[in-house]
């Protein structure tokens, strides 16, 4: 057994370090060899002595996943089967509940209920918590695990236990429907254009956004008086889509850049000349669940001085994961790059700080405390700055009397985009700090 392992380890090192050249390298290789030997020893102990007879693949799956998860919360191992499954899922329309959720305090929180969707029909409301699916408790699961229990085929009913804001619980039976893939909704809101982008994870998203803007323009005979772009709770998605969408609002120039470990290895993404809504005041609405691609558009329009950003500090997921296929059929989901806004700020761990801080609910400790990337265990740090905090003393909270079913942040965004002081506020951003 020992010989086998030694042979194994040498073999492993040979695989890892094809050129055994310099003395330094040799030393590093020696250290790596020792680590791999340690692993191979432990592996064989588990294999031989664990109470259950497990297959090699079962044992290894935990090990590889553990190694990747020790890096950061977004890196993970996708075993062969799961990878195949995901490939399949990507091509198949899945019946859904028509809700958008996040994980909060270990429970699934409903962030958005698609009007007229299956959940809406059963009276599920935004802000409520799903505590169990088919009688199985959510607590202790990851968001992926929780959500996978909710997916299913069209027409299949699902039982969920819902905890309302007043802590009462109730059971709902929701029949899954194929929820339309449309991730963009738009309307005229109080005299200005409003566009809500639910996710960037849709191949036709930029086309839909363009159509929405054209439709809004036609409502105002060609010229929008103002535009609110709502990316609240938008978890991000495809890079190509966010670049195309941001391009509509910028006249050339950089949208964002991404850098790998080697700083030379920088990719820059640019907008094309010309924009869809030239000269139209824009306000971008974000919250603590606006992540990744949503932070790219907010950061780009903010840095390029094209829009005012309003709401809460965004999530701070400024890293790119690549799917790396492995020979055995599985894959690695590995963090390979960080995002930077056009002014060179990393989004990672910090997020985008709004120009105008507005909260969605009345002032309380819970509304102040928000879960973000930097709260994740073992989150990747920001290369530039340690931490930024929202200044609650200047945050605009709705009063206790504000009706809970009305959107305070949106009302404030509309107010800002229509304000005669909009241009002034935008211009002031570039004015160096003046002392009173």
């Amino acid at each position, binding site marked *: 057994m020992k010989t086998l392992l030694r042979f194994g380890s040498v073999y492993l090192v040979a*695989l890892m370090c094809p050129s055994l050249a310099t003395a330094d390298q040799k030393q590093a290789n020696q250290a790596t060899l020792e680590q791999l030997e340690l692993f191979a020893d432990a592996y064989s102990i588990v294999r031989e*002595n*664990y109470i259950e007879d497990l297959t090699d693949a079962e044992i290894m799956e935990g090990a590889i996943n*553990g190694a990747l998860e020790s890096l950061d919360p977004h890196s993970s191992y996708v075993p062969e089967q799961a990878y195949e499954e995901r490939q399949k899922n990507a091509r198949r329309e899945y019946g859904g509940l028509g809700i958008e959720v996040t994980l909060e305090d*270990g429970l699934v929180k409903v962030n958005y209920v698609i009007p007229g969707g299956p959940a809406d029909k059963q009276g599920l409301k935004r802000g409520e918590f799903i505590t169990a699916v088919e009688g199985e408790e959510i607590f202790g699961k990851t968001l992926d695990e929780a959500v996978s229990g909710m997916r299913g085929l069209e027409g299949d009913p699902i039982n969920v236990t819902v905890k309302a804001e007043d802590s009462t619980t109730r059971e709902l039976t929701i029949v899954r429907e194929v929820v339309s893939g449309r991730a963009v909704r738009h309307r005229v809101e109080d005299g200005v254009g409003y566009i809500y982008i639910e996710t960037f994870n849709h191949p036709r998203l930029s086309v839909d956004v363009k159509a929405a803007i054209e439709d809004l323009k036609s409502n105002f005979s060609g010229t929008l008086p103002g535009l609110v772009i709502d990316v609240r709770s938008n978890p991000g998605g495809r890079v190509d889509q966010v670049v195309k969408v941001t391009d509509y609002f910028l006249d050339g120039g950089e949208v964002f850049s991404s850098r*790998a470990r080697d700083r030379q290895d920088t990719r820059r993404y640019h907008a094309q000349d010309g924009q869809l809504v030239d000269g139209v005041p824009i306000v971008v609405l974000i919250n603590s669940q606006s992540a990744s691609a949503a932070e790219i558009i907010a950061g780009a329009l903010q840095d390029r001085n094209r829009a005012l950003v309003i709401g809460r500090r965004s999530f701070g997921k400024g890293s790119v994961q690549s799917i790396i296929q492995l020979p*055995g059929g599985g894959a690695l989901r590995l963090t390979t*790059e960080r995002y930077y806004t056009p002014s060179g700020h990393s989004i990672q761990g910090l997020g985008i700080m709004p120009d105008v801080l507005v909260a969605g609910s009345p002032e309380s400790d819970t509304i102040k405390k928000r879960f973000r990337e930097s709260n994740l265990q073992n989150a990747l740090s920001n290369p530039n700055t340690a931490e930024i905090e929202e200044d609650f003393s200047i945050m605009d909270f709705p009063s206790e009397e504000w009706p809970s079913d009305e959107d305070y942040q949106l009302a404030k965004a509309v107010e800002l985009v229509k304000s005669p002081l909009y241009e002034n506020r935008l211009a002031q951003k570039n004015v160096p700090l003046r002392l009173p």
Partner: protein
Amino acid sequence: MKYILPTMGAVAAAALFTFSTVSFPASAKETSKSDTFKQLELFADVMARVRNEYVVDVDDVELIEGALNGMLHNLDPHSSYINPEQFKRLQTTTSGEYGGLGMEVTSESGVVRVVAPIDESPAKEAGIEAGDYITEIDGESIIGVSLSEAVEQMRGKPGEPITITVIRGNEDPLEFDLVRAVIKSRATKYEIKDGVGYLRIPQFNEKTTVTLVDAVAALKKEFDGKIPGMVLDLRGNPGGLLDESITVSSVFLDGGEVVSTRGRKADDVKDYFAKKGQLVKGVPLVVLIDGASASASEIVAGAIQDRDRGLVVGMTSFGKGSVQSVIPLRGGRDGALRMTTQRYYTPSGRSIQGTGITPDIFIAASQEEVNRDRISESDLPNSIQNELANEADKSELDIETPPEGFEEDGDYQLKRAIEILKDGSYTQKLAEANEG
């Protein structure tokens, strides 16, 4: 649970390389060997990819530690990797005293859950309950943190304050301010209650049997040599040292089997016997257990029940019927593996794993206890299956509960245990239990 068997572990690790190759038939060995190679190759490939492509430089040691954590954690909730630093501390603290909170915890999908707080500990006195989920330590989320790391964070110098956030049922998170204290090995306590002897074993540590023997001697003296009846209270006792469960059982049994452990291989069986000559011959005995009685508590209750030595009263126990061995890696220089290597079996051959010990008479402390979904081993995701019975005995239908108006801080289970001993129904009930 603390089954630290370093000597045995070392033997197991050393034995591995000598005997492991003979344990497989030749043909099976060939396939498994090639599969092992395939998996180790996959692992090396992953390491190489991560080293080359991850967004920041990675440390081999951390990566391998992550892999070891993941590999062990993936096995079951009680298996874990102990890093060199923790191993060193483990060796110095096993016999010594350290500052802590005094509770037995387990891990459920990355969330730390309380099995039971120990009597008179800071945790118990602050009001932390069996089944609570610990979500934050000093305001920092520990969701996703390994069990050993969470335990590490809760330990510290006696006198140091700590804030623990727990989630209990569907309530809002609760915060507890505690002060770390020296967690002394709690001794067995005794009292005369309503004319019968009452013995309370809060945990199984190196003092347990010594102090139990003293307690029994003192009770004998108080009753002039003839104890009319005895209650052995193992409620909320999370277990402890295996050896102590054998010597404790010897106080009540006249020789014979207490428990056996079995490993994966058919010949890996070890029987543990009680010593001849019990201390309390012929004294009627009621053993009290509940959902937080685990491990060594279940061994004692199971032996007394199977050997018809007493009545087991209360609620179904936790169901922790597995033994962990601590296997040092390179003499502990590289840490150690804490791994499940055996299962417990009661003298009649029942596995405790998952199902726990079913009481002869179900009596709940309160109606709430009946309703509450008690934490038990089979609730833990990934817990080892009981291979003898997949379903726990669901006979908890006929559960006696305190009558309306029973004083809130009264101990109904103890009151009923004493009544059973005194109202003359004991012998009848014991005979019925033995028939059942």
